[in-house]
């Protein structure tokens, strides 16, 4: 990934500089509860009561923090998608080269999905049901990731570049795959898709030969180091 893209991405990362207050901790718990409940029961079936059963707070306190369940979900979504973006980005920019960045980013994403399937379901599947502010935040995150993927276009000759929409296309393919695994209740299955998604990402930018190589490399990586990749998942 190009240095200037990394710098721009780092500036976009959220930075926590102060220790959380007790009230902030409760608010954080309510937000996590909202994502958990939405991920477990679906956005349509979620309720403030279910959130409070998860987080342990009081209704009055909840409404001091948020206007509504929708507001809580939107704020929770914004905070968590930024954190996930930061996690993915941190490992991606540390990798050597564009392809390695893409692979490292996917591995970080898959770890999160396998570790936190309920919250991931809220972030990837139910946000599309919720719409509104959360959906707008989702679209921003997609656009940011698409822009980072597109940095490799600058390394290609103008005649050989895919259209700028290639980034959104690849992110869409990755997200659809994640959604399928989560909606099926088989978050661990997402690891099996690593070779195919590497093929999709690399092939969209660099063509068939590079895509086939990326597919084989990802397969080998999974065969030999799957336990390590899954890490503490």
């Amino acid at each position, binding site marked *: 990934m190009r240095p200037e893209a990394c710098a721009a991405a780092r500036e976009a990362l959220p930075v926590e500089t102060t220790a959380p207050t007790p009230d902030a901790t409760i608010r954080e718990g309510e937000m996590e509860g909202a994502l958990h409940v939405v991920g477990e029961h*679906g956005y349509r079936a979620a309720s403030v009561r279910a959130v409070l059963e998860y987080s342990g707070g009081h209704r009055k306190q909840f409404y001091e923090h948020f206007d509504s369940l929708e507001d809580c979900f939107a704020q929770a979504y914004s905070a968590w998608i930024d954190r996930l973006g930061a996690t993915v980005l941190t490992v991606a920019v540390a990798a050597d080269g564009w392809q390695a960045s893409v692979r490292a980013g996917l591995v970080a994403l898959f770890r999160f999905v396998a570790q936190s399937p309920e919250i991931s379901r809220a972030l990837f599947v139910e946000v599309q049901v919720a719409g509104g502010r959360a959906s707008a935040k989702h679209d921003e995150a997609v656009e940011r990731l698409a822009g980072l993927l597109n940095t490799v276009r600058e390394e290609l000759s103008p005649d050989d570049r895919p259209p700028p929409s290639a980034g959104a296309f690849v992110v869409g393919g990755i997200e659809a795959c994640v959604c399928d695994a989560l909606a099926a209740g088989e978050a661990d299955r997402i690891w099996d898709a690593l070779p195919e998604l590497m093929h999709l990402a690399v092939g969209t930018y660099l063509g068939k030969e590079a895509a086939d190589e990326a597919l084989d490399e990802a397969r080998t990586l999974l065969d030999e180091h799957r336990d390590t990749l899954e890490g503490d998942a």
Partner: protein
Amino acid sequence: MSELRLVPEETGDGPFSTGTPLPRRLPRGRHGIPEGLVVEHQRRRLLLAMAEALAEHGYANVTTTQVSERANVSTATFYKHFGNLWDCALAAYVVGADGLCGAIEGACAADRDEATDDVPPPDSDAPLEAGIAAALAFFAAEPVLARLLCAQPPREASALRAARRLLVSRLAALLRRARGSGDGTPQPPGLDERMIDATLVFVGGRIASEGAVDLPGIAAELAAILDRSRQPA
């Protein structure tokens, strides 16, 4: 069938009407229309209303009441046709998916017929381009269906999610057929499905941000992306 034209036509020849003009409601009282025809028309109106209500209210807020009111039937009539909201959404999805696949197959077949005399090379891009153009034209003509087919359904609508997987498989098979044999190297399984997933999310994003009317204008861009991973670097 002529009795159906006793009331004003509101919808022309979309996939829900299967060629028959679809009035918003049938005449009240004794109209002499066979009961089977009335039931079939109610069903078709409900399917159209479901797609429209989803496009307007999204998965988060759509209700059977909204669908019934749009179709000009009572909720009791709704439940004579469908067990619940998701059954109706599933039926609408299946009709839409059949319409989309039919449009693509028709365009590819017409392209093959036209090319018979010229005998195009086996890896000609023409069938792929014809199929993409047909799909985008279908989406542009049926924007509410396009939203339904491209969106990720909620987790609780498991049958709808299965229908989406089936559509992805059908479209992937059409993509393989349209692309031809390429360089003769067999494509690893699952890759075309990833491409179709990415395409549906990509098109859905375009519709959400810019509407469906101009979708045919992105045909060349989409063909370039879809074709890229089979091209040498």
